[in-house]
């Protein structure tokens, strides 16, 4: 992998964002000094990133941003792909890693006190804020790909919600790929800063656009000050040639509340590392997620909930349906520090394997150093429930349709809990399609 590290470091000339050059060059040093994870490293034991080396991804797109969607018909198609009906979002659209201004819209609907801007367009006050916060929620040594991301930044999104400001309008950040003649690498970056008592909704949306061979290396930081509330979605719907490494690093001050929903349809590999650090007492996070790989696809979620202070709660639930010869990995770590008394932490991971070649590696990892805590966790790997199957069939439903209805119900339970009904409605057809080949079998669930 050493060769890959060197090559990757040379991809972009350092410092397109001159005001961030210090941050970027420091990251470059870290990246060059990094040992890339291999299968001997516990955290990467089941994740094979060799495909990254072999995949020849280290190229930049020749066309990106507005240049990549130049025709009217391209535009219309792209808008259709981005649209989540009924969400009424403010939308920022990136194509091949660069902002596409003609497709980004709705900024005038943001209330006073909300700043939403791409790094390249920031003013100096915003740059100061970014410099103060960027990278503060993550540990680069543990997550070496975040160093690559930082060293190669050409742009990023900055959302700042001022004190006591409630932003009702969801903010949707779409990352698309437009056809290129070779495989490409994209660095995705998002920094969300919520000041005390503020509220916002952020949807990180990676639709299936052109089925481009692309390596997306994403880093999202969510910084929630006292009593701030954030609804956060990370929807990885990209096509099967996508190689996605994503990191979401959240830090919650006292009383802050983070509600996250993750989704990954399968591809060559999608791995998301999610870290939520409870830094202030009374903070709470809900994290739900779904993964649906099939064929030879791979999905990997590594979550880590850090409870560093007393009286915090976390509730985590991930479910997956793994079909064909696909493989999924779920690693859920809960770390309760010595002083984090009265922590309430729950985690559940349920998996449905629909073929005997499908594979799931699920591992709860608990490190508990405080004695007065409640920590419940469970992981299951199951087939469909016989009793439920029989019940449906006694009502005349065919075995094939019953199995689709039950599989869908299994994931739909989490979709039903999604905060924004428009997102639930948008996702259901993708979910159904991802494990049902015969459309007549989905007519009653959609």
């Amino acid at each position, binding site marked *: 992998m050493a060769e890959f590290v060197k090559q990757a470091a040379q991809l972009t000339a350092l410092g397109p964002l001159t005001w961030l050059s210090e941050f970027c060059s420091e990251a470059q040093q870290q990246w060059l000094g990094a040992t890339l994870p291999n299968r001997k490293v516990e955290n990467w034991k089941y994740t094979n990133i060799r495909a990254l080396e072999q995949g020849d991804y280290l190229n930049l797109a020749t066309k990106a941003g507005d240049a990549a969607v130049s025709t009217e018909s391209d535009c219309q198609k792209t808008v259709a792909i981005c649209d989540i009906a009924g969400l009424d979002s403010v939308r920022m659209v990136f194509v091949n890693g660069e902002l596409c201004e003609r497709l980004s819209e709705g900024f005038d609907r943001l209330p006073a006190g909300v700043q939403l801007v791409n790094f390249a367009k920031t003013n100096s006050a915003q740059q100061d804020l970014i410099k103060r916060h960027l990278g503060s929620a993550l540990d680069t040594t543990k997550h070496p790909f975040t160093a690559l991301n930082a060293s190669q930044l050409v742009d990023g999104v900055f959302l700042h919600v001022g004190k006591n400001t409630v932003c009702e309008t969801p903010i949707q950040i779409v990352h698309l790929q437009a056809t290129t003649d070779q495989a490409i690498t994209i660095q995705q970056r998002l920094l969300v800063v919520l000041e005390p008592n503020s509220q916002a909704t952020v949807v990180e949306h990676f639709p299936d656009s052109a089925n481009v061979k692309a390596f997306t290396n994403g880093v999202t930081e969510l910084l929630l000050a006292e009593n701030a509330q954030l609804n956060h979605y990370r929807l990885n719907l990209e096509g099967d040639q996508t190689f996605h490494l994503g990191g979401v690093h959240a830090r919650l001050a006292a009383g802050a509340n983070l509600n996250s929903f993750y989704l990954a349809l399968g591809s060559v590999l999608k791995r998301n590392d999610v870290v939520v650090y409870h830094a202030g007492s009374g903070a709470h996070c809900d994290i739900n997620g779904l993964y649906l790989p099939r064929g030879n696809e791979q999905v990997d979620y590594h979550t880590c909930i850090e409870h560093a202070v007393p009286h915090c709660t976390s509730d985590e639930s991930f479910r997956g349906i793994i079909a064909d010869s696909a493989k999924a990995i779920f690693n859920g770590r809960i770390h309760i520090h010595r002083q984090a008394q009265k922590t309430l932490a729950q985690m559940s991971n349920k998996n449905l394997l629909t073929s005997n070649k499908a594979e799931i590696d699920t591992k709860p990892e608990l490190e508990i150093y405080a004695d007065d805590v409640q920590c419940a966790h469970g992981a299951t790997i199951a087939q469909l429930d*016989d*009793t*439920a199957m*029989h*019940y*449906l*069939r*006694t*009502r*005349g*439903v*065919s*075995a094939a*349709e019953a199995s689709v*209805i*039950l599989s*869908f*119900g*299994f*994931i*739909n*339970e989490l979709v*039903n809990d999604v905060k924004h009904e428009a997102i639930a409605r948008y996702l259901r057809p993708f979910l159904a399609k991802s494990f049902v080949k015969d459309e007549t079998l989905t007519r*009653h*669930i959609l």
Partner: protein
Amino acid sequence: MLSIKDLHASVEDKQILKGLNLEIKPGEVHAIMGPNGSGKSTTGHVLSGREGYNVDSGSIVFNGKDLLEMDTEERAREGLFLAFQYPVEIPGVSNMEFMKAAVDAVREHRGEEPLDSVSFMKKARERCKAVNLPIDFLKRGVNEGFSGGEKKRNEIMQMMLLEPKLCILDETDSGLDIDALQVVADGVNALRDSGRSFIVVTHYQRLLNYIEPDYVHVLSDGRIIKSGDKSLALELEEKGYGWLVTADEEGVA
């Protein structure tokens, strides 16, 4: 309608039905009573074709067809309906989708046009009201978090929507309050007609005041040991099963 002859059935190599005979003509209501563990629910499961319930010998003919040759769903489409003693919870699947799938399957089998969603909704709402469940139960997960009595009423609602030919109600009355019992009985009575038959499994004579049976059978240790008219239920209420079971054992010996 239904003819069960010398049925022997077992679960996990344990013999449960040991020579069951039952003849049901169109329009008849048969009550089956009997001690716990005598095989009443097993009879329902065998009739519904549940996996793990093995028929060792005997025959079941349903409307002139060999029931044992059919899959569970085929039996349902042919008009067999089982209201479960313990209805199953299916979180994530709404009652509405579930019932639409069921009604569509049954109608298709009968060669009828599928109901469009508006007509189906209308019908479902009516039936929901008929069993006195709030309309939002249609949107909830199938039986998810329903109380015992609500689950039983949900079974009756399904029965009303599917309009089966033979309805088997397995202790649909247990766990019902007095008003709910009336609702269930009204539901059944509304469906009673010359072409539709019922098997009503119950422990309580009280239900039979609401749903008047043509015959009452006592099932014990996998066989019917006594049949009579509705007065038998009153007699059982008074005397219990002991005298019958002893008489039967003496008869066998």
